[in-house]
């Protein structure tokens, strides 16, 4: 697989249809996840990326299967975008044995090593240094794998962010840091507690990096900037940091209605919803509406099937509880 294939692809309608499908899939999946949360079938918590799909989809399109994704608790989209099937993801949310981690991780910790989804991390900042480690390993072993690490705007104020950025820059690691700036932390506006206007981009120079901002609600734009950064990393050019401007349509987590946000701000961003935008763009490029409806329908069927399969999953038992603390598969701490 070579990067030129991808570059060519970006001008290609089939490629764009793929990007559309990906975004629609993330959207429909998460809407379903939300419904299941309200039905009390998703226990615990869940953080949706509704409105932010263009970023996960655009990056995934620019990555090779052997590349690595590091996501946060808001990681459904990043997991699915890499090709992980819907059923195990949904089953994981439901805490079933057919879940991606058999229910042991839950919504915040989606991981599928076989798809290069190297974990979702629920402690702010932690995965930035961990992504550096994967990148170091690629560098050491001389593979040309790249690690892509997603995090939020509010996460730029924690210590691990700083350590990872400097470390990656000094070691020239093949890692791409992606700040999804959706303007808000949980219930607090990030600029109220951040010394600069662009929490990631305005700090790139502190690590000798270029300041890169992209419209995170435009999958094509995301794809272009992603491909450039990933290619640079792959070719030994070291890390990049990209700040993607976006917005979450819903609340922070669970059933949060997000009422702390001004109505006009929400309205402004709903108007910039990446999916209708991309839909319009495809129509303008001459794609027939029926083609798009067909995609949406296919996704809806996939979600339906995944829901059934997930709900049919077994409830995990004691065998799973005591399994895999250690590499030998067990949990014994004594003889």
């Amino acid at each position: 697989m070579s990067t030129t294939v991808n570059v060519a692809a970006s001008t290609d309608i089939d490629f764009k249809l793929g990007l559309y499908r990906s975004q629609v899939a993330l959207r429909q999946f998460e809407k379903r996840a939300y419904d299941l949360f309200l039905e009390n079938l998703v226990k615990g918590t869940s953080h949706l990326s509704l409105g932010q799909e263009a970023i996960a989809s655009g990056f995934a399109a620019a990555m090779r299967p052997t590349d690595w994704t590091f996501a946060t608790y808001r990681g459904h989209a990043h997991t699915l975008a890499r090709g992980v099937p819907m059923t195990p993801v949904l089953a994981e949310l439901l805490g079933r044995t057919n879940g991606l981690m058999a229910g042991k991780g839950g919504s915040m910790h989606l991981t599928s090593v076989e798809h290069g989804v190297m974990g979702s991390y629920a402690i702010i900042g932690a995965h930035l240094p961990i992504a550096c480690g994967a990148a170091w390993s690629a560098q050491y072993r001389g593979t040309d794998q790249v690690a892509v690490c997603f995090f939020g705007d509010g996460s730029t104020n924690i210590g691990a962010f700083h350590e990872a950025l400097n470390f990656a820059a000094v070691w020239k690691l093949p890692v791409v840091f992606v700040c999804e700036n959706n303007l808000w932390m949980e219930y607090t506006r990030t600029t109220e507690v951040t010394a600069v206007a662009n929490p990631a981009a305005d700090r790139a120079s502190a690590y000798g990096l270029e300041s890169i901002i992209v419209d995170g609600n435009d999958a094509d734009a995301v794809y272009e900037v992603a491909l450039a950064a990933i290619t640079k990393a792959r070719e030994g050019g070291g890390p990049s940091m990209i700040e993607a401007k976006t917005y979450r349509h819903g609340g922070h987590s669970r059933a949060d209605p997000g009422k702390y946000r001004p109505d006009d701000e929400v309205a402004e961003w709903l108007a910039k919803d990446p999916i209708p935008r991309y839909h319009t763009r495809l129509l303008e490029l001459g794609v027939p509406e029926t083609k798009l409806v067909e995609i949406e329908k296919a996704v809806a069927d996939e979600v339906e099937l995944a829901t059934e399969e997930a709900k049919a999953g077994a409830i995990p038992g004691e065998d799973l509880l005591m399994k895999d603390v250690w590499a030998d598969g067990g949990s014994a701490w004594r003889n």
Partner: protein
Amino acid sequence: MAQLTFREAIARGIAQEMRLDESVVMIGEDIGAAGGVFKGTVGLLEEFGPRRVRDTPISEQAILGAAMGAAMTGLRPVAEIMFADFFAVCWDIVVNEIAKSRYMTNGQMTFPLVIRSGNGGGLRFGAQHSQSVENWAMMIPGLKVVVPSNARDVIGLMAASIRDNDPVIFLEEKALYSSKMDVPEGDIVDTLGTAKVLRQGTDATLVALGNMVPRALQAAEELAEMGIDCTVVDVRSLVPLDTKTILRETSATGRLFTVEENPRLCGWGGELASIVSEEAFYDLDGPIVRITTPHIPLPAADALEDMAIPSIERIVTTVSKSMNS
């Protein structure tokens, strides 16, 4: 008397002290307008204003560093670490700085501060948002550790913690936030280092903490029906530790069972076992038994989490089996 939830009791306890003492200030993530992720600080911004109730960036080291610096210069900060698991990102400020600085400076500094945090499991949040960290703190010389088990105690122990001139780790059991009870009106101030005997029995002593207290009590009821009459002690604060009550109640029944939410190794129950097996050895009639979460990270799925954390049923089975063997 008013019915009060555990989470409402948090805000009431803090408000009680903030009204009395201008030097009490609050700092944490989303504690202001949002009222805290667990709604433990609802109403405080409105009553005390943004000067005394301050939202912060996601910077736990800065939050606790700020609390420490403020405490050493005359304020009495109440800092929030949202989930107790996040202590891990600011542990240095807690254990190397706050806990040690009074001793290292030969008493030149005092640190009258409280660090509140949502502790423990039961909410299906998975391994990174469900830990019981009371033993992390108990292990560190220079920290006091308070874990209330009901709304009334929340108020009284919060007041005592804020008034205390030492750093207090105040752990709010997440599984208890929505529990309710009748709480008297008016100021409540309790005393740190006092365990409570909640039930007096003759056969065995169950010592429990936080979220395990209501379970131990319920288990004791069921055990009583089986003919095993248990004393139940609520530890309430691990440091200072009311060893007098625990030794007395253990000696009286001759049997000690600890009920701990923490994964087994180095839990507070081990410490109690060592104290009792040294100081009340000759009063013991049988083995000391610990009922804990197995030594594993907490799983997310409801079914798995329920298997992991000591249940009433497990307490009943363990105690009855051991008493009948």
